[in-house]
């Protein structure tokens, strides 16, 4: 919330008995902040979404004695100067500017004991806010192993706040930390502030005076952000553009420059100078510092071995999403069919309710749950990679591939995962801090050819390409289809970064932290919270889309359709009475009429006159340039919630039943034998090579996945979901038309 005049609130945190105490947890990235959060709260945590804030934070409950106290885990940041929304939320939260989030009564700064001076920079910036603070020194056992000996008592007395060494993995120091929080809340212990050089003090004071006159009552810390940050996120962009404000900022930066200070660097230089004075004699290293992981890193990021190990790791990640989750997905499928059969049996006398429950509700719940195995396995690996510190090395190794398109190496894992499924892939973009890079990665992720496209490729290649051109060409086509999305994705990213309003690619500065042993508790909690998040945020929408498409395919439902099918059967088989159940009749030749064929014919007749099918026939002219007949068009429409549905839809429409799969010989035959029934191409086969390729290109590029759209909507915004749908669907149509027209022309030569 870029509000600008509520700053004063934070300086007077008021305690009313009804208002529970709020703690904020801040620290640099990779300081074990989340481990500490998990140790303090356990399972008593949930993901918080504040209105208008796109970044998610976690809130949990910690018990001080027996009093429950709220604690918010803020995104890791090196500085209060925000260059990404994740970093910005820290400043907003500390200033109490986030709606529905009360300003914290105390802030816990997590500082990496093995890199104390650098970590103190953020604490020193927060000290400017003059709020009660406790410092937790994480990685305490690593510091001891590395011969770093910190005089904690002296440090605490110099800083003026409790300093508690913790080792979140063993739980050491947690009880002391809780006690220190209590005592700091009582005594309101604040960290010692920096003594700014005169010109800086003058500039801050002058800026506050001039902004006050404009009705902007920024605290000292808020004024510092406006003065020091090249893009002052502390101000509403609209307010910042006001000429009086602009000129005030420029004038006050002039004061700095006249004093010999550069506005961009003075803050860091002054704080680090202040810190080096505070830290004098605090660390007594015994012998040489031993850093862990340097030799490991030499192999893992080695020119040759590094890439080999990387490919191996990424293969594992991909396999986990692609095939390790397969048995679990099978169980969900089996459970779903079992439930569907059970309900269908129990509800035979209520056909409408039967279809709603089995094909609508249970199908919809299944459509949501089916993603859980992939999401959980992917986040198991992501948590593992992040915990160990390898994730940043992956970004380091892959950055070169993405740099030209405006993205950075952090987009690699989400895009790779999207080859299995875009849903977990998009969720994993949360590891990308830069908002614009993250949005662009979300936008291009669905272009990766996911496993749900495979049935379409297998069906078409199996029916049209393999029989005529042999397995080698078939394999090549399959590979080409997987490459197509990737070849379009990166140029798309390039165009987006060039055209996004006011977007400048952020400089890519990546800390490469020491390697750490992963903590299984963190990994499991991460899987649990990501899975829960998905069910809550995207689940309902996926469920509703499934229900809507069910209704469009089921209705209208006039009795006359079934009657006319019966009448047709009765005509062909004179002994058949229209009111007799099909299963009990025989035709004159003594052959039993296949009751299943009869049922399939009724199903086909109903689908053919359903609302969706009518829509398919109406818009078929749009797909005519791509060579699609109304049946393919209907398949395309029915596949918008989930693209693999095309196979069963074609099964129904060719009277084969909905249980066919992409390898069914009957469906392949039906496709090969399908002919145009009307129009200029009447009598000619529908599925020529050109049509087959056009269908595959269309499915490779089209946004036919309600679940992906639901996740884009919850991770980015409705606007991005709509943009993704429009872009991919238009792109798919254009490329399908180009494919059909050019292949038709080539084959006619």
């Amino acid at each position: 919330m870029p509000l600008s005049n509520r700053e004063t609130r934070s300086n007077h945190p008021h305690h009313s008995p009804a208002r529970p105490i709020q703690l904020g947890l801040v620290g640099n990235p990779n300081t074990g902040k989340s481990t500490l959060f998990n140790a303090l709260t356990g399972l008593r945590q949930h993901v918080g979404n504040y209105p208008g804030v796109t970044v998610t934070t976690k809130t949990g409950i910690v018990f001080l004695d027996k009093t429950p106290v709220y604690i918010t885990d803020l995104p890791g940041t090196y500085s209060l100067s925000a260059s990404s929304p994740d970093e910005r939320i820290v400043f907003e939260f500390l200033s109490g500017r986030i709606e529905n989030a009360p300003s914290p009564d105390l802030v816990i700064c997590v500082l990496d004991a093995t890199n104390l001076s650098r970590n103190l920079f953020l604490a020193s910036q927060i000290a400017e806010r003059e709020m009660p603070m406790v410092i937790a020194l994480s990685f305490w056992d690593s510091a001891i192993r590395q011969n770093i000996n910190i005089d904690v008592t002296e440090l605490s007395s110099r800083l003026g706040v409790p300093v508690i060494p913790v080792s979140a993995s063993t739980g050491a120091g947690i009880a002391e930390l809780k006690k220190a929080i209590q005592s700091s809340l009582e005594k309101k212990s604040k960290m010692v502030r920096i003594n700014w050089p005169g010109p800086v003090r003058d500039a801050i004071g002058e800026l506050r005076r001039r902004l006050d006159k404009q009705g902007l009552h920024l605290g000292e810390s808020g004024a510092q952000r406006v003065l020091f940050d090249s893009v002052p996120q502390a101000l509403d962009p609209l307010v910042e553009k006001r000429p009086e404000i602009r000129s005030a900022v420029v004038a006050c930066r002039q004061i700095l420059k006249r004093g010999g200070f550069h506005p961009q660097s003075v803050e860091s230089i002054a704080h680090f100078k202040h810190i080096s004075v505070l830290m004098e004699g605090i660390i007594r290293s015994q012998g040489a510092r031993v850093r862990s992981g340097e030799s490991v890193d030499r192999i893992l990021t080695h020119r040759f071995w590094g890439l080999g190990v990387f490919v191996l790791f990424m293969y594992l990640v991909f396999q986990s999403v692609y095939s390790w989750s397969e048995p679990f997905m099978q169980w969900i499928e089996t459970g779903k069919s079992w439930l569907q059969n059970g309900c269908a049996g129990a509800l035979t006398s209520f056909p409408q309710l039967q279809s709603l429950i089995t094909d609508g509700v249970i199908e919809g719940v299944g459509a949501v749950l089916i993603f859980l195995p992939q999401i959980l396995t992917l986040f198991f690996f992501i948590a593992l990679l992040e915990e160990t510190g390898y994730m940043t090395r992956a970004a380091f190794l892959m950055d070169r591939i993405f740099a030209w398109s405006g993205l950075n190496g952090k987009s690699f894992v989400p895009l790779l995962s999207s080859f299995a499924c875009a849903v977990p892939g998009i969720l994993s973009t949360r590891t990308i801090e830069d908002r614009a890079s993250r949005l662009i990665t979300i936008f291009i992720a669905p272009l990766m050819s996911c496993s749900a496209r495979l049935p379409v490729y297998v069906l078409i290649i199996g029916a049209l390409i393999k029989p005529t051109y042999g397995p080698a060409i078939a394999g090549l086509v399959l590979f080409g289809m997987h490459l197509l999305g990737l070849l379009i994705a990166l140029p798309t990213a390039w165009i987006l970064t060039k055209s996004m309003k006011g977007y400048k690619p952020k400089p890519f500065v990546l800390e490469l932290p020491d390697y750490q042993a992963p903590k299984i508790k963190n990994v499991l909690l991460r899987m649990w919270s990501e899975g829960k998040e998905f069910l809550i945020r995207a689940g309902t929408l996926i469920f509703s889309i499934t229900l809507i498409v069910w209704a469009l395919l089921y209705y209208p439902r006039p009795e006359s359709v079934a009657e006319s099918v019966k009448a047709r059967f009765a005509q062909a088989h004179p002994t058949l009475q229209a009111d007799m159940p099909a299963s009990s009749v025989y035709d004159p030749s003594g052959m039993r009429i296949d009751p299943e064929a009869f049922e399939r014919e009724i199903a086909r007749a109903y689908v053919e006159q359903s609302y969706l099918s009518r829509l398919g026939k109406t818009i078929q002219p749009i797909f005519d340039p791509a060579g699609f007949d109304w049946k393919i068009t209907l398949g395309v429409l029915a596949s918008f919630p989930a693209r693999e549905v095309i196979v069963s839809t074609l099964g129904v429409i060719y009277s084969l039943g909905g249980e066919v799969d992409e390898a069914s010989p009957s469906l392949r035959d039906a496709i090969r034998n399908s002919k145009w029934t009307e129009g200029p191409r009447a009598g000619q086969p529908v599925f020529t090579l050109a049509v087959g390729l056009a269908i595959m290109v269309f499915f490779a590029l089209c946004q036919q996945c309600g679940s992906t759209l639901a996740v884009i909507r919850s991770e980015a915004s409705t606007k991005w979901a709509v943009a993704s749908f429009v872009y991919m669907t238009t792109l798919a149509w254009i490329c399908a038309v180009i494919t059909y027209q050019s292949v038709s022309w080539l084959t006619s030569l």
Partner: protein
Amino acid sequence: MNPISLSELRPGQSARIVSLDQDKPVSQKLLHLGVLPDKHIRFIKTAPMGDPLEFEVEGTNFSVRRKDAGSISVELIA
């Protein structure tokens, strides 16, 4: 000794930071990581595809692209 650009270092070489181009957005991010004038910086390695580069300053290892490393000038430590 004449200041050179950080991107001109060879792997394993150490240098003293002379200045950061303060108008480049990358500078503020580096300053927050403690990459300040007068600090010692060590060039550790290049990523396998030639970019980005890895450096170390006072126990913090970080990576920047070659282009951005060009905005830091350093003096070699003999």
